[in-house]
């Protein structure tokens, strides 16, 4: 992939990267897919064959609809294309139906919707300041960022092997971040509101948006030292933001409100029984508090981005029923920060490498083993070497402990996948590889979270005003 970048001149390199990764995704079509494949097939069937009033009540399959309404409408739109591939997949009773045409359609739909992600990455690249970089194309922050995002290992294996639709969702998020960087706050807010109604997991980072928009958009001016000028509060802006969120929510939940189905929808979206309520929200409130306690010092889009990542990481570490895939919520925005400062690059590399390694147990089948190892090695090698080259004039990215930790992932993988299956412990304690992986990765991710926190807290105020 590096050579493709080298060989292209001018602005063509971005298209080359996008095309290259699309070709790679096509090659991943016949690989293993998880039950998420059946989940989405089921949702295609539900939205196509049943009237809207039945969508959140249908329970023939165990994989009931538990995403917000916009996603349901998205599946509805897809189902109208699906009927040209294989009509049978749209039958609700065809559980676990996976003909070759179904597979082809589903995989292609993921690849196709990734176009939004590609566009979002393009917009993010515009927000990167690349003046201090060298003349060489591969050393420009824009190029490195594009590779880190477009060819992100985690996104590739979760979306195109395991099977999910994270590509375009992260595209929406990155696009809203880019709009906030470009000071088009209304659009950013709108996009985030839409995103929330596609997948509500992004609620984790909603506090960051809320605080930032309040701080930087609703208060239109700052005092010279950077703190809030309280009398510059603009009611108009608050109202307009509120209106946007309200309108989007109305569009999404409105029909279900009219059908008196709101409680059912909410119970599908937030499936916990009584008593677990406190356990779910408490850690998130703590995360909220932790993030908010720096409210008054958060200045500029970079600060917002850090806050967002902190929210995402905190909820990953302390939230309830969090899936490994949620690490992507922190990894992808962190890529934007990584090409800016050496300190951020270091945190990003630890977070990404550990986070991606923690995704390995998702692909547990034998044929995917070489693929996942090779892709991971390629991505990790590229990210470390390119960021090291970018920041070669500053102090080294890793200290000896961090290097040791990252190198330790190799022996861990060898042990878990190659040595352990041949030992006698496999029968008695089959959970050991998973346990080791989880614990080892948890250490790395917690360390990255801690380091990011410290860097946010210890950022001197004077440098922040310059950033804005």
């Amino acid at each position, binding site marked *: 992939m590096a050579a493709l970048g080298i060989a292209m001149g001018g602005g063509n390199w971005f298209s080359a990267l996008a095309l290259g990764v699309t070709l790679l995704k096509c090659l991943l079509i*016949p690989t293993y897919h998880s039950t998420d494949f059946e989940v989405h097939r089921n949702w295609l069937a539900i939205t196509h064959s049943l009237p809207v009033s039945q969508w959140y009540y249908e329970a023939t399959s165990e994989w009931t609809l538990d995403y917000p309404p916009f996603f349901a409408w998205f599946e509805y739109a897809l189902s109208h294309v699906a009927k040209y591939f294989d009509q049978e997949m749209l039958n609700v009773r065809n559980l676990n139906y996976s003909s070759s045409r179904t597979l082809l359609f589903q995989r292609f739909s993921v690849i196709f919707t990734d176009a939004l992600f590609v566009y979002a990455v393009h917009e993010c690249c515009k927000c990167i300041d690349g003046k201090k970089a060298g003349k060489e194309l591969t050393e420009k922050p824009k190029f490195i960022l594009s590779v880190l995002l477009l060819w992100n290992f985690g996104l590739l294996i979760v979306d195109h092997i395991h099977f999910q639709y994270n590509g375009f969702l992260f595209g929406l998020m990155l696009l809203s971040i880019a709009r906030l960087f470009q000071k088009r706050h209304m659009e950013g807010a709108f996009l985030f509101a839409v995103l929330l109604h596609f997948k509500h997991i992004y609620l984790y980072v909603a506090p960051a948006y809320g605080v930032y928009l309040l701080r930087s958009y609703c208060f239109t001016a700052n005092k010279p030292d950077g703190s809030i000028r309280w009398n510059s509060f603009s009611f108009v802006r608050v109202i307009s933001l509120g209106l946007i969120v309200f309108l989007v929510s109305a569009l999404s939940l409105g029909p279900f409100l009219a059908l008196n189905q709101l409680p059912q929808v909410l119970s599908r979206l937030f499936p916990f029984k009584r008593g677990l309520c406190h356990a779910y929200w408490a850690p998130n409130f703590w995360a909220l508090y932790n993030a908010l306690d720096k409210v008054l010092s958060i200045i500029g889009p970079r600060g917002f981005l850090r806050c967002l990542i902190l929210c995402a990481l905190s909820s990953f570490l302390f939230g309830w029923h969090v899936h490994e895939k949620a690490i992507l919520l922190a990894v992808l925005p962190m890529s934007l920060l990584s090409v800016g400062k050496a300190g951020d690059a270091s945190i990003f590399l630890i977070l990404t490498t550990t986070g991606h390694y923690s995704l390995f147990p998702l692909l547990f089948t034998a044929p995917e083993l*070489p693929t996942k190892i090779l892709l991971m090695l390629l991505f990790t090698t590229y990210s470390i070497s390119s960021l090291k080259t970018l920041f070669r004039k500053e102090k080294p990215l890793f200290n000896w402990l961090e290097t040791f930790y990252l190198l330790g992932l190799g022996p861990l993988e060898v042990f878990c996948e190659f040595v352990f299956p041949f030992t006698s412990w496999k029968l008695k304690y089959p959970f050991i590889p998973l346990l080791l992986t989880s614990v080892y990765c948890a250490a790395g991710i917690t360390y990255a979270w801690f380091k990011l926190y410290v860097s946010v807290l210890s950022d001197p105020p004077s440098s922040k005003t310059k950033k804005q």
Partner: protein
Amino acid sequence: MLNPLSHPGAGKPPMFGDYEAQRHWQEITFNLPIKQWYFNSSDNNLQYWGLDYPPLTAYHSLLCAYVAKFINPDWIALHTSRGYESQAHKLFMRTTVLIADLLIYIPAVVLYCCCLKEISTKKKVANALCILLYPGLILIDYGHFHLGFALWGVLGVSCDWDLLGSLAFCLAINYKQMELYHSLPFFCFLLGKCFKKGLKGKGFVLLIKLACTVVASFILCWLPFCTEREQTLQVLRRLFPVDRGLFEDKVANIWCSFSIFLKIKEILPHHFQIIISFCFTFLSLLPACVKLTLQPSSKGFRFTLVSCALSFFLFSFQVHEKSILLVSLPVCLVLSEIPFMSTWFLLVSTFSMLPLLLKDELLMPLVVTTIAFFIACATSFSIFEKTSEEELQLKSFSLSVRKYLPCFTFLSRIIQYLFLISVITMVLLTLITVTLDPPQKLPDLFSVLVCFVSCLHFLFFLVYFNIIIMWDSKSGRNQKKIN
């Protein structure tokens, strides 16, 4: 799946024939004594994927069998493991081939590109990437060991490490006998070098050293089979099945294409078929080889490799479709010198294997890797800007022709048009083969068309490469330096 840069997903079914053959060889070599490997017996039914490659393949299978025994003995149990297929086994087989590639083939490619002269580092990396992206070698999974060794041989001989180079090449021949396609250029080049150094002095010493190296390596590989005459003869009989006829199945060479019009296989007697195939092959490669012996040069060596292998492919007997890879490898080596024609050739060679690949349900990987390869080459070498006569190395040729035909100035234009027509034909044929069903009376229509079209292309390339070799004169090269 071999090439780590592309990841054809593991859900692809393996080529059942080759896959089972390789597994069976592990079974045979592990369970039976050496003396019985090449003989028909109750334990070793030669009709069922009998061993028909030279001893090094057998030793390699034995090594893999030891690893297989450690992991799961069921994979190589005598008789009972026939047709064995499981996820873990597929992974094992793929890994053995991947490791072989990583250790031998890929380092050779990288080192070769590093040794290229007069181009920048960026271009060297791009060159290596394009070679590694060649669809033919990625899609045809099994058995690249011999290509790796052959590449080391080329590297050694080009960089004046003659003994190491010839050793590597001998190992390659002992791995797969098809490497003999490349043997004549090696022989002529090294002989030419000896002549150049003077047969009365250093040249003679070099000749003796090379002869010893070759003989020693052959003896070492064939040691267990040299003890009895019958053993050696049987192995040779397995390696060169002269009884099997001029060609089997559909392959893009002359005999198969010719048999559309005239059924040679049935008309001519058997030994006569072998004689004419022999004659045509040698007549077509003779000029290039003679020139190489008289004027040995690294560039001439590489181009002669191409033309010899192509001659063998077109005219030899019992040629398999996969043998085109033996021609593609040398063409990859001249990628940096004539990017446009090389890319064109490599695309055609991939296309010629279309029926084989479709049989293995490799359509999607084929399309993806071909597109990726084409784009990589087109951008790395800017091939569409390099179609002038000078770039195509046809300048001296067209100058000679212009002495007789002053109006012969449109050569590059013709070639560009031909390229366009060729690509359109290949794409159309691919679409037709994939979407339509052949008519009832001619069930093989599409494969035959593919073979015929590819054969025409290959003839064109044979003529082209021979022209380059024959018209590549010292004066031409001096003129380049002056310019």
